């Protein structure tokens, strides 16, 4: 069984439900002792942007996205944010939340090519 996991999140601002469930599953992976990355691309990049992610709350039974992301990072999860997707939206690195870092396709390909399963939201 793989000891790593990847959750790819491609929606957030346009569909906060998907970003929320994506991070819930990412927390399930971290909580199940998997070394986990959340890879944010296209509209999903907003889920790691300060001032934006705080506005994403889909309601009970889900915690606000901010809380889910903070827990994920505090538990050792890494957030990789597609750098060209950031550039397209005018997002700079200093706008990212703690624990998130710009990255690109090579980082994702390397992670998956080493055997990590991946689920996309």
């Amino acid at each position, binding site marked *: *069984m793989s000891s790593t996991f990847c959750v790819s999140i491609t929606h957030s601002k346009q569909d906060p439900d998907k970003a929320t469930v994506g991070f819930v599953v990412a927390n399930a992976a971290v*909580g*199940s002792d998997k070394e986990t990355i959340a890879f944010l691309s296209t509209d999903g990049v907003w889920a790691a942007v300060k001032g934006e992610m705080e506005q994403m709350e889909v309601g009970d*039974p889900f915690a606000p996205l901010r809380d*889910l992301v903070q*827990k*994920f990072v505090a538990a050792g999860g890494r957030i990789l944010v597609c750098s060209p997707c950031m550039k397209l939206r005018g997002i700079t690195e200093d706008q990212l939340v703690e624990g998130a870092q710009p990255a690109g396709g090579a980082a994702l390909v390397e992670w998956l090519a080493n055997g990590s399963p991946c689920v996309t939201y």
Partner: protein
Amino acid sequence: MSTVPQHWHYEDVFDAFELGCGQLLLDLKLFMRTVAPGTAILLATRDAGSPVEVPAWCRLTGNRLVASAHPFYLIERKPDPK
């Protein structure tokens, strides 16, 4: 109102209330870090997915599911890695 099976013996309790899925599992993992290896934990989780989720989490993490009677689960904390 369901009650904990009388014959269950446990040393600590983690009540997750309505939490399920990743919101439960990460908190459960962090809670397990606070108890000694071998400790018997009573987990209470009223989420409808827990009868599937909790056994899967135990298989993934190596913690032993001793018994279950939803919403209650008796789990023995795994040994620390050598």
